[in-house]
């Protein structure tokens, strides 16, 4: 791959202050989530019922919830669930979408028509309802949750990849590869997928916050992650239930979650500008 292209893109991303700060914040959150089991001040399920809800203090930086559980600890463990669902579901969506789009775009003709018609039909289906249905019927299983979400979020990805592949496959270097006897699979893996990677990365970055939002939505409604486990959506739900007396239970998880959504969106926008200078400023 062209190294200067990626270096240029990286430089442009870094020169944008918003996406630079967003990247730093996100990196911080991700590292924190990864090392949580080693540095968390308390156990996420440990209840101190004698203490009950307490305001932020030196012992509990973000206070404790109504059952006396340390909020900072629960937020740190919650970030693991939220981020894991976001990233894993995006990987599922990415894999299905890229393969589907590449095959459709490269095959063309009838195969393409049928494959994209299937995408059109699936696109019309209100998937939030299906995700809720899945949760109700098969129980609140985290693995199933992100598999389900990933399996419904690949459609846009497939469309983007297909159009990208179609315009690429008309170009001369693909023709040259074909003339030199490179197999179809070879062309797909060696030439088409690497060249579609820019828009795919941008869209994937913007998919992660969408999925995290969906998880938070479900947990907020009581249909997602269940206590004593925690996720940001669940913490916001608990916080909203007792915000009248204990505002910190709502404010801290909300802040952490919004900032993460912000930074992912800004990084996505920044990446789009960095990878495709033509669209910048829109």
């Amino acid at each position: 791959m062209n190294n200067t292209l990626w270096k240029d893109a990286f430089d442009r991303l870094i020169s944008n202050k918003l996406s630079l700060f967003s990247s730093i914040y996100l990196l911080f959150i991700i590292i924190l989530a990864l090392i949580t089991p080693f540095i968390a001040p308390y156990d996420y399920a440990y209840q101190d019922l004698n203490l009950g809800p307490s305001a932020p203090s030196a012992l509990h930086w973000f206070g404790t919830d109504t059952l006396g559980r340390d909020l900072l600890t629960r937020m740190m463990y919650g970030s693991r669930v939220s981020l894991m669902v976001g990233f894993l579901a995006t990987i599922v969506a990415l894999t299905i979408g890229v393969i589907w789009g590449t095959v459709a775009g490269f095959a063309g003709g009838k195969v393409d028509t049928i494959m994209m018609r299937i995408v059109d039909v699936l696109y019309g289906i209100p998937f939030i309802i299906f995700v809720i249905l899945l949760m109700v019927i098969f129980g609140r299983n985290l693995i199933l949750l992100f598999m389900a979400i990933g399996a419904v979020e690949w459609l846009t990805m497939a469309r983007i990849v297909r159009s990208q592949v179609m315009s690429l496959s008309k170009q001369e270097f693909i023709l040259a590869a074909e003339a030199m006897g490179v197999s179809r699979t070879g062309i797909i893996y060696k030439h088409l997928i690497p060249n579609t990677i820019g828009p795919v990365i941008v869209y994937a970055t913007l998919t992660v916050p969408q999925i995290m939002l969906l998880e938070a939505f479900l947990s907020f409604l009581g249909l997602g992650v269940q206590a004593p486990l925690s996720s940001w959506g669940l913490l916001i739900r608990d916080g909203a239930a007792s915000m009248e007396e204990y505002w910190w239970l709502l404010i801290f998880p909300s802040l952490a979650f919004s900032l993460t959504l912000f930074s992912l969106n800004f990084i996505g926008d920044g990446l789009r500008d960095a990878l495709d200078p033509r669209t910048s400023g829109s």
Partner: protein
Amino acid sequence: MFNLILRRIGIAIPVLLTVITLTFLMVHSAPGGPFDEEKAVSAEVLAKLNEQYNLDQPLYVQYFDYISGVLVGDFGPSFRFPTRSVTELISIGLPVTFELALYSILFALCVGVLAGVLGALRPNTALDYIPMSTAMIGICIPSIILGPILILVFGIWLEWVPVRGWGYMPGDKILPTLTLGTAYAAYCARLTRGGMLEVLNQDFIRTARAKGLSETRVVVVHALRGGLTPVIAFLGPAMAGLLAGSFVVETIFGIPGLGRFYVEAAFNRDYTMILGSSIFFSILIVSFNLISDLVAAALNPKLRD
């Protein structure tokens, strides 16, 4: 235009059939029957119940029975509340949800279009940057955060507005509308700005200005028609989002609408209620997508390929 209508309907019908079939199969493949929890039921009573709800028939018979029911607007009984039917709950909840969605979309259009037009007329000035960065915040703050925070600030701390209900006290419709509408206002602003910027650079706008038309007339009569196409195309998907958003907003504010019934049904595992309202929601969303596609095509000849 006629071809376009046919083609869109040609997609909408398989969408609906897929939805109905998938939902039906999913609900019927749920582990355990709907009466599993009532342990004390004798075999005889169980048989009666199964007969009453048609569960003794083979699956395909139930499926076709159900589809023919849906066609005439009968979505079946509720398992949890045997005296109520899904259709009845829909008729109670729909007007409320519809009102909420309508206010939210009106709020979104008024604020969003105004901000977007201002931004497009003065691009890269404070008049552009401030609304557009606010819009970014509006998009990023989800309703599950915005709702509780609005309640906390305006309902509890300032005590300006009631925090629960819908139409019980004056002003109790304000916070739900804001909670649901803000993100869409933000999207509308961005879409309007993008659409207007594109249109304002075109030749016919220069012609209109050269003719000496007033700026207001150029913007309102000539530019808005084309500039709003992305917004109108967005209204269909927005409707889907609004309905999904109503799950959260109606739960937060205790509004007796369709969204809350749906979440309650999901919570109670009221299978027929879930089945019925899922299908009903899907029909609504698919229809709105269809309508907004057609309106966008009617406004913009370029979309009628």
